[in-house]
């Protein structure tokens, strides 16, 4: 009775098999470089002691973005901030949480202030100093729209980052142009025949930015920090007007558990409501694919602002939101084809 031991040819190595692939902040096993947010020496541009609510997605998004930008510029960075939570929780006298040169002027003028800063440095011959403007969705897509559009159209050397938490949070959660249909805010209460925010036409500022033909536009989501980092890096490698919109849940405004900020952001991503893409000079150059499975239900369920959507009689709201996700999936060809 003799036996024989088999040897079979090796299979191709799969990088994705490296435990968490590129999904975690770092991956000790991957040969891809770890992300900056996993680095002990990241700058923490937005320092501890800031007064953001527990689990604030905006605070997180801002640190990720600005740390990255600082890294790409060797610290030669100036940040201009619109009024909003980010500004209020980071700089109440007598303490500032920022470690970068930082200026807040008004609610609606960050893009213009940043334009001025950029021109100022240009004329001083300090083109190595780069400028970021940042603000909430209200400061960016509503009251700041005029200045933003001007900044785009003049192709100012500014990266504008919008932290989209889908409402005016700082003033107590009022509706903005980014507030989704059906969502409850203080000015769109879930009462009457059409509870929550009415379903409007929507307003995609990334697409508006693309219509300006600026060199770079991207959407990002705090649940995908490596992607966010890569997009900020990409943006910082380009001169001219750039726009990144980062999806950042607000536990207070959305009625989510403070621990679920990333989870909720991930759900939004996976159901197709917040497509991630990049565009250069007005043309989409990359789209992040999603897995085919998730519907909007789980995402909406985790948020009190959508609680009424699950009441009897409001099924049409759920359907309408699903329809938006489906439309995104079609428009951006989001789902990975197997």
């Amino acid at each position, binding site marked *: 009775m003799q036996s024989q031991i088999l040897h079979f040819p090796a299979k191709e190595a799969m990088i994705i098999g490296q435990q968490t692939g590129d999904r975690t902040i770092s991956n000790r096993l991957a040969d891809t470089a770890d992300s900056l947010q996993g680095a002990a020496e990241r700058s923490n541009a937005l320092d501890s002691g800031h007064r953001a609510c527990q689990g604030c997605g905006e605070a997180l998004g801002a640190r990720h973005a600005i740390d990255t930008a600082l890294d790409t510029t060797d*610290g*030669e*960075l*100036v940040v*201009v*901030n619109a009024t909003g939570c980010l*500004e*209020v929780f980071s*700089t*109440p*006298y*007598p303490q*500032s949480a*920022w*470690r*970068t*040169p*930082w*200026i*807040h*002027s*008004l609610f*609606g*003028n960050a*893009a*213009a*202030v*940043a*334009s*001025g*800063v*950029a*021109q*100022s*440095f*240009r*004329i*001083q011959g300090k083109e190595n*100093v780069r400028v970021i403007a940042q603000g909430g969705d209200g400061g960016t897509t509503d009251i700041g729209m*005029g*200045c933003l*559009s*001007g900044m785009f*159209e*003049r192709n100012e050397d500014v990266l504008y980052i919008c932290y989209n938490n889908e409402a005016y949070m700082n003033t107590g959660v009022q509706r903005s142009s980014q507030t989704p249909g059906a969502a409850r805010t203080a000015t769109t209460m879930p009462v009457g025949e059409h509870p929550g925010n009415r379903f409007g036409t929507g307003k995609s500022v990334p697409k508006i930015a693309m219509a300006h033909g600026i060199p770079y536009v991207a959407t990002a989501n705090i649940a995908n920090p490596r992607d966010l980092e890569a997009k900020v890096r990409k943006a910082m490698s380009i001169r001219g007007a750039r726009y990144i919109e980062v999806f950042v849940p607000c536990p207070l405004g959305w009625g989510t558990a403070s621990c679920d900020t990333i989870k909720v952001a991930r759900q939004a991503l996976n159901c197709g409501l917040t497509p991630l893409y990049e565009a250069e000079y007005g043309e989409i150059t990359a789209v992040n694919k999603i897995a085919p499975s998730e519907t909007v239900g789980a995402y909406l369920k985790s948020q009190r602002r959508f609680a009424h959507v699950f009441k009897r009689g409001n099924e049409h709201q759920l359907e309408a939101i699903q329809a938006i996700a489906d439309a995104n999936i079609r428009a951006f060809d989001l789902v990975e084809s197997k």
Partner: protein
Amino acid sequence: MLKQIDGSYAVGEAVALCRPQVVSCYPITPQTHIVESLGKLVKSGELADCSFMNMESEFGAMSACIGSSAAGSRTYTATSSQGMLFMSEAVYNASGMGLPIVMTVGNRAVGSPINIWNDHSDAMSVRDAGWIQLFVENNQQAIDVHIQAFRLAESLGLPVMVNMDGFILTHAYVRVDMPEQEQVDKFLPVFKPFQKLDPQSPITMGALVGPEAFTEVRMLAHSRMERALELIPAQAEEFANIFGRNAGGLVQKHYDDETGVEAETVLVTMGSVIGTAKEVITEMREMGESVNAVTLRTYRPFPAQALREAVIGAKRVVVLEKSFTPGMGGIVYQDVLAALNGTGIEVQSVIAGLGGRPVTRKSIRTLFAGCDERSNGHGFEVLDLDNTTMDRELAREASVLDRII
């Protein structure tokens, strides 16, 4: 160098001599030609190392100035009227952050009704914004005061607004003495900001300040303004030494009284109206009337002391102004009244020239003629009011409102 030139272009050239690094602009009559001229100078290369920013609104224009100044560049813009109102949020912001921006205001009425002509409503709308507000009487002064404005702004860390009457000055084609670059360079040192956005030593600008410190912030702004009251005459004197001309200052008293006795009636005005007024006053004085004129060249900070000194001894002061607050009356009048409180000098309020209505010699004569009548307790007088229209319209209104109210 003497040259015949449009007021706007003259200011543009003067600003260019100040070597601004960022000029942001947005068109609005009657200021537009100033920035147009600067745009041309930048484009042609005559004004080097300057960024000329065509903004999307006055709000954007002032905001860009805020950014530019905070990043350490000498910064300039100009506006008028609606533009001032549109940028007003940023106007407050610039001074709150202590940014030495210089802005020309081609003074114009504020609508509605929309009206492109001169009065001082725009300047008055931001009276409390914390900017230094200077008023010029003619185009030569406009040139000279702009040069001083940069120096003043940068030595105090406060923004300065140079007010010149729309059309009357901005569009007047007159002969001026345009300073030489060396003179300007001698007077105006390179801009060294007190604070700036600098990666080498980061600061946080524009913090949120609560009740625990807001009042102090305001009082410190006030004290900074008071320093301007010392600095403005000093710098005007220095300017005169270099340029050989008197310009600027806090107030200007127009006639010296050989007798040493103050004139009985002193006209107090701001801006270009003094030109016409002086013609009448000269005439009147030649006829032996005891009249004089004082212009307020600095309106904010209000030069109360200088004004008192200029008019002390007079029997009455007549404030002739191109601004008006409905429901109250004169605006400058209130400042003058407060400044002369306790001096025993009677202060009269006269409004004229709203929305570009010419203030003629005849108007001024009427003003002086009505002094005694006004002494009998008239609140204020509006010169050249069309009483026929007023009567008709008041009657028409009354026919409706009386029934309702």
